């Protein structure tokens, strides 16, 4: 399926492909953000490939990395064809300022929660998502924990046991 998929994408979405990566036998395509939704819809409805299974959506933050210059965030879509038992990745690079990308929740039901998680942990906005709110972190938490500029051991002084009592004044 590897070569067929490449041919198909090059033929139909030649403008959208930036490059192909083949690290450790894993095929991944870097694609442009604007064509992304069309490619996903085409792959889902393609009669031969039958990419019906969206395995995972995750993101990376290349903040502070010297070699990666195309954009700070990378959103990775992990797609799987049940017919060919073949897994490949679509990767989209996003800018650091106001990262936005189209939502897949119309196409796949599971994209709903996976996108919410990415939004919660990275602050990437999915356009067209029906209910884009925090999912795992508490509501009081400011910032996006999995960004590289978020400290690991950040602790918020949320409440103390004696909050309702007047503070004791030491004489």
């Amino acid at each position: 399926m590897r070569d067929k998929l490449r041919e198909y994408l090059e033929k139909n979405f030649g403008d959208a492909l930036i490059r192909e990566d083949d690290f450790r036998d894993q095929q991944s395509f870097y694609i442009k953000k604007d064509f992304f939704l069309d490619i996903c819809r085409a792959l889902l409805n393609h009669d031969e490939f039958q990419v019906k299974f969206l395995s995972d959506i995750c993101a990376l933050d290349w903040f502070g990395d010297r070699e990666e210059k195309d954009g700070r965030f990378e959103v990775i879509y992990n797609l799987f064809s049940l017919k060919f038992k073949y897994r490949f990745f679509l990767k989209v690079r996003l800018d650091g300022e106001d990262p936005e990308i189209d939502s897949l929740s119309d196409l796949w039901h599971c994209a709903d929660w996976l996108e919410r998680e990415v939004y919660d942990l990275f602050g990437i906005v999915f356009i067209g998502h029906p209910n884009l709110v925090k999912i795992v972190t508490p509501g009081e938490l400011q910032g996006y924990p999995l960004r590289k500029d978020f400290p690991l051991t950040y602790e918020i002084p949320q409440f103390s046991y004696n909050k309702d009592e007047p503070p004791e004044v030491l004489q």
Partner: protein
Amino acid sequence: MNINMGPQHPATHGVLRVELELDGETVVKATPHIGYLHTGIEKTAESKLYYKVIPTTDRMDYLAPMSNNLGYCLAVEKLLDIEVPEKVKYARVLLTELTRVMSHLVWVGTHTMDLGAMSMMLYAFRDREYIIDLYEACAGQRMMTTYFRIGGLAYDLPADFDAKVKRILKRIPEAMTDYERLLTDNRIFRNRTIGVAKISAEDAINCGLTGPCLRGSGVNYDVRKANPYSGYEKFDFEIPLGHNGDTYDRYLIRLEEMRQSLKIARQALEGMPEGPYRAHVPGVVLPPKEDVLSRMESLIFHFKIITEGFKPPRGAVYQAIEAPKGELGYYISSDGSNKPHRMRVRPPSFVNLSALPKLVEGGLVADVIAAIGTIDIVLGEVDR
């Protein structure tokens, strides 16, 4: 009417909150709220050396710690492109299959307890202790074993390994006959499970369900067969499939999976080759202890691995395994340093739980408990 189940509810398998909107007894809308056990494991992994991440993976799906270890170790081994000895593969397969049995045992105990059969939990926990006993002999810990390491195992298999495995292989099938006699034809159990929380094959695929939940709807997808890892292609086993996609089918599948797992474990035990329990990869895998004490370069390697770890090449890999709950995947991105740039876990429970509204909406409120039980979630893995 709105009802709030949880987050501390005795039947929610941990800290899950489900907001139910009811019309009489019928569920109109169900909204699961998660995050009450958010541990920040993915963030923690970014600050640790590669081999120090293994203990945190144990604590995700704490009912199946060995599966988590295996997924992580395989992913890092793929990133480093190293091959482990045959004995390690066999031992890993054997122990992960017993982990599957253990996870399903806890599932059958807690799920049936939610449905009202208190005694099943006691039976399941009694039989689980045999496997825990084996874990303890191998790794010295009852639950959080951290037994699989990058490139091999933490220690060699214990002397009484064979005897302990044989005891499990003898004991669990006997116990399962008892479970089946108690449950399979039990009228109450059947009434509460047949036709409850149904999902069609189309929907199951679209929801991204994996594991017994997907196979209950008749979709033949198991990572062990589809993309074999760790030498699974050498073992002879079958993938049980359901027809109706309801709670009862998933129960039957899990029981059959336990049988198949024991079958694989028996094959692995019989075919267990001799050999080292760690790969020989200088600079990545710790050298044997005797060498460390007698040879200079081994001592240096040991010191360097422990203090500064190893540096995989730049790139990203994804490794999926078939955990008891479904497809557990690790996406590890390396930026060439000695710590993972990003470790993403594809949690089967998280994705399966997101289908909960589909399973319960339109059903009765009493069936919500059955639906939560049947998708077999572990909140540690859902929230991470």
